[in-house]
């Protein structure tokens, strides 16, 4: 097995919402405190090996982007540990050039590119500033990178609004590649694109991965894309990981009731457009998550126990963990 490139232990992030500092102060004295703390990511642990692709799926608002930002090191964690190749983030991020090893591709191809900069500068700026390439060679360097993502050389003098959505996402990928990353986080990198363009971008990402052996964290709504791209998949629900397994295993024999719901909602025949359908039941507000297992109001096999005890992640097969109180092993599935 390959070396570990990234490891998160008990990573959490909460936001104070709607609360002014004064309100927070007042809360210390008030009886009926307003819950102003939102736990966007709650005690998440995961690992990523060199060259591996980890998928993260989950409904909107379950904290995927927050997790991605923490992994990328642009959002501080409320608690928990992050390590890159065994080194804690505090010291790792302080060395700017090393911190470049983790890069991110964003969801919105337009707003993730600064509208006032030419593509040449968008892609080349960081490489030049961090002295990865001398300024005099910057232009050739950028043209090379653009060629890798399939953009013509004359793109460097154009502005983001002069490109199509797919081309913009290529620029975003080129920007990440330009600083020679070892780990790439794609936060819904294809969600905003047309289906045909999605396929192109996914192929591009796969080519890049094959050529350079990047480790990748691929966040998506789209189970089909995840199945296609990823070696392992983590399923998130309201800030927590509920199941994590190898792709084949997860799709063949999901154990957690939430994962099963997601996969049931997935059209079986068509290869295109395999977005999961909305599942029955409201998604609870992350501000007031249900006690115990977050999923219990929607779970068909929930027991009274589930609304009191928080399920921890347990290994149920080699490389397969889930957080459910009632399903002890895969064999139990038949009862459902």
């Amino acid at each position: 097995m390959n070396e570990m490139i990234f490891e998160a232990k008990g990573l959490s992030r909460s936001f104070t919402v709607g609360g002014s500092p004064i309100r927070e102060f007042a809360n210390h004295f008030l009886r009926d405190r307003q819950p102003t703390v939102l736990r966007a990511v709650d005690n998440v642990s995961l690992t990523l090996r060199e060259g591996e692709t980890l998928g993260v799926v989950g409904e909107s608002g379950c904290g995927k982007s927050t997790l991605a930002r923490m992994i990328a090191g642009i959002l501080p964690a409320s608690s928990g540990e992050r390590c890159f190749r065994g080194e804690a983030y505090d010291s790792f991020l302080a060395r700017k050039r090393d911190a470049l090893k983790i890069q991110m591709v964003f969801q919105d191809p337009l707003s993730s590119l600064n509208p006032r900069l030419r593509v040449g500068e968008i892609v080349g700026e960081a490489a030049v500033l961090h002295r990865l390439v001398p300024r005099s060679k910057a232009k050739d360097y950028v043209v090379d990178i653009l060629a890798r993502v399939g953009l013509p050389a004359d793109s460097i003098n154009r502005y983001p609004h002069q490109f199509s959505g797919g081309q913009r996402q290529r620029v975003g990928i080129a920007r990440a590649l330009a600083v020679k990353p070892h780990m790439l986080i794609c936060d819904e990198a294809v969600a905003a694109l047309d289906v045909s363009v999605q396929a192109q971008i996914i192929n591009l990402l796969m080519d890049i991965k094959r050529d350079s052996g990047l480790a990748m964290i691929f966040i998506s709504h789209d189970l089909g894309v995840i199945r296609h791209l990823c070696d392992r998949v983590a399923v998130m629900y309201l800030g927590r990981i509920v199941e994590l397994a190898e792709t084949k295993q997860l799709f063949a024999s999901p154990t957690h009731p939430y994962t099963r719901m997601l996969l049931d909602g997935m059209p079986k025949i068509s290869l295109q457009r395999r977005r999961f359908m909305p599942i029955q039941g409201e998604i609870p507000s992350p501000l007031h998550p249900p006690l115990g297992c977050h999923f219990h109001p929607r779970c068909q096999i929930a027991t009274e126990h589930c609304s009191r005890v928080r399920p921890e992640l347990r290994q149920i097969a080699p490389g397969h963990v889930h957080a459910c109180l009632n399903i002890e092993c895969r064999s139990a599935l038949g009862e459902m």
Partner: protein
Amino acid sequence: MSRAGLKDFIGRFAESRSAVVSLAVSITFVACAIFAPLLAPTDPYDLTQLQLSDALKPTGSKRMLPGEEIRANMWVEGGSASVEPVSPAKTRLAFLTEPCAPNCLSVIVRPEDVRLASLQIRNLPAGVTVEGAKKHPIQPWWTVDTPQGSKVRLISSAPLPASFTFLAIAKSMEQETDFIFRLGTDGFGRDMLSAILYGIRISVFVGLVAAGVAMVFGTGLGLLSAWRGGVTDAIIMRAVDFMLGLPALLVGLAILAVLGNGVSKVVLAIVIVQWSYYARTARSFALSELGKEYVEAAQCLRLSPTRIMLRHVLPNCMPQIIVLFTLNIAAAISLESSLSFLGVGLPLTRPSLGMLIASGYEFIFSHKYWISIYPGVVLLVMIVAMNLLGDRLRDLNNPRLDR
């Protein structure tokens, strides 16, 4: 902005005729400000050129050269006279004498083209008088008003004494020159046209510099506020709220009352009044830019906060700030004019438009309207044009308001 984007922007700008006109007017004013020394017929700051005789002349009057005066002691000895000027003033006038008929001596003022207002002869010996002159009731002084051919004749019934002395005083008439005061003159005899041109120069200069300094300072604080958040943000924004709550004119008055007047102090006062607008605008637009993914991308590329703020966020806030700048130039000009009008702004020797309006205020009830009205109209046109320009730029920046 790309070239195509710029073209599109110009096209949309030109859709509004009033915007184009106000742009043209604004440019004209800036040109007036820059080229005032070349355009102005006189230098209103040169106090030595001013003469009280020109004061309060209406539009179209000509400048008058004041009359000159010469005094000379004359010694007549055996028919020839020697002339000794008493006060060797700078004048082109000169005396000479010429015998005429027996018992007669002409006193002539040269050059010939000069027109004399009066010629007075004093202290003649007994028996000698001046032809056609009025004698002073007590003193031995003879005066001829507007003497023909600039000369007078000393006559005596007996032969003139062989030697005698007298004092001659000649005064020449005021002379019209070709110089026309196109817009009249103010109470000091300053040419209003020149004063207005120089006033535009000062007003535009003060407006640009003050609004510019306020922009740099306020935008900097706004960006800092947006970036740091927390306590820094709270302190800066409370200061902004405080400043916005105070009436601008009152703050300006208070500051200048403490500091005294002068261009730099007026600029300082306007900066203190205006920085808060920029801080608030820059903060709010920077916050909305900071929420965009390209900022996260820049953080991911481990660029320094300073670079992210100045190179990435600031340029995206710049259109809104420039709109505010245009509007604030007009506000700065009118604030400066108000302060000058109230007498705490710029010094009287270097009048701005507001100062000119104020200086004409005392004459307006004696029908000497031009001193206040012309600078007032100029100020009005200038401020309206800049406001229209700023409004149009703001509309263009806000797609929802456009069309």
